């Protein structure tokens, strides 16, 4: 609990979190202005999708940086070493630290989207269930990338390394992962489509997007062919949960196994 309190005070008094949040706020308001011409009853869904399509470029990279630099600072400030000589081991430190990070990032984010909902009330007909799904999608995406960022911060030895790894991870999930899948796409058949689907939904961006679009009713799977039915072998929400669990666990253990306690070469 005291980790959450410490992270909160540190980040609230700092500038990084505010800068990140202000980017999200600016984007949200810009999208709202752009969408003001849409119809009252259906414009809400259009706005959510447009907002998500824009935010997806920022939240992953911001969360990666916040997670990575937060862990790295513990090394640089030597507070990590001081804590490790007091507490049990790196794993327990990382759990507490990550919980603190999640709180510090998600609470302002959720608060902002609550305020945003009030702004939307004046412009569009709201669907609370869809909005909740949208916020849940953003939260899941943030969690995954915060944890991956924490892993990067754990094994990096310099700020340049962090920037390099972060950009690589962002590039991988935005381009490389789908690019590799596209290369295999012509060879997908009914026999291997389930495996292909598992790799497709391993990309958190795809899992989150599918969850959001199907949950809000914007994307429909009417008249699915056999191939598509086999591709969607479970519900989008389970794909998302599986993805979340996979990346949280993998990143956590990567951080624990490959961590470097010192912040220099």
């Amino acid at each position, binding site marked *: 609990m005291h980790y959450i309190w410490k992270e909160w005070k*540190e980040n609230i008094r700092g500038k990084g979190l505010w800068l990140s949040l202000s980017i999200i706020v600016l984007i949200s308001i810009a999208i709202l202005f752009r969408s003001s011409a849409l119809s009252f009853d259906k414009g809400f869904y259009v706005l959510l999708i447009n907002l998500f399509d824009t935010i997806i470029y920022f939240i992953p990279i911001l969360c990666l940086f916040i997670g990575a630099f937060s862990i790295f600072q513990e090394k640089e400030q030597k507070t990590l070493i001081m804590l490790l000589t*007091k507490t049990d081991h790196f794993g327990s430190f990382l759990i507490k630290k990550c919980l603190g990070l999640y709180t510090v990032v998600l609470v302002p984010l959720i608060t902002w989207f609550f305020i945003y909902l009030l702004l939307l009330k004046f412009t569009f007909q709201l669907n609370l269930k869809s909005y909740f799904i949208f916020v849940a999608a953003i939260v899941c995406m943030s969690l995954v990338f915060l944890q991956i960022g924490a892993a990067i911060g754990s094994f990096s030895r310099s700020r340049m390394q962090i920037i390099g790894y972060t950009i690589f991870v962002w590039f991988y999930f935005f381009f490389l992962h789908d690019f590799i899948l596209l290369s295999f796409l012509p060879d997908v058949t009914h026999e291997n489509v389930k495996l292909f689907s598992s790799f497709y939904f391993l990309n958190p961006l795809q899992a989150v997007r599918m969850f959001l679009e199907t949950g809000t009713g914007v994307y429909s799977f009417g008249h699915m062919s056999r191939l598509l039915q086999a591709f969607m072998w479970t519900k989008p929400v389970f794909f998302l949960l599986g993805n979340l669990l996979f990346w949280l666990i993998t990143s956590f253990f990567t951080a624990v196994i490959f961590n470097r306690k010192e912040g220099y070469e």
Partner: protein
Amino acid sequence: MIKVTNLQQSFGTKNVLDSIHLDIHANEICALVGRNGAGKSTFINSLLGLLPVKQGEILINGMAVNKKNEEWKKAIAYLPEKFMLYPMLTGLENMTFFAEAVTKTADQKRIEQVLRSVSLWDDRNEQVKKYSKGMLQRLGLAITLYQDSSLLILDEPTSGIDPLGRKEILEVLGSLQDKTILLSSHHLDEIKQICTHVAYLDNGKMEKYTVEEFLQTHHLGGISS
């Protein structure tokens, strides 16, 4: 208090520590001295369990330093070199956080006592980023003292601090009772002022001297000079 037997640490083919033996008894204040790159940090990290010990044995208060049983950690308080703590938190908040890392709830009276002993009580509500180096070092010392451990390991506690600041820190260290201290230092006057022994690390080997013996052996003048 600290008993090191046949400690060996190597990185690649280079033997950084080569069959180190060291005995530090209770209430001794021992300086760890050596040239830059001699292996002082490696030795300290081994004592703290941060580096796995493949050969040799380290006992802290009779307890072996290993990952299976970490009781020995309770006996040690460690202050690293060039630490920065959490700059956005105040001195008091930093103290409270590290106190809660040791015990579930911070003992506010103990915190006050310790902060007063390092003359930081009046500055406790300032953010650490506004502290001078000397104040920061004293705060770090306060954090280690809060634990009331019997063994303090201090890595260059006066590094980069002005002479007046160093004097304050050395006074604090000198005033400590019933503590065994291992401190890494490059300052001869510091060693002369407060230390009782010197562990000299050179070429992977370690020798322990009294301060007088060390000064005479290495032609550095006596204690009085």
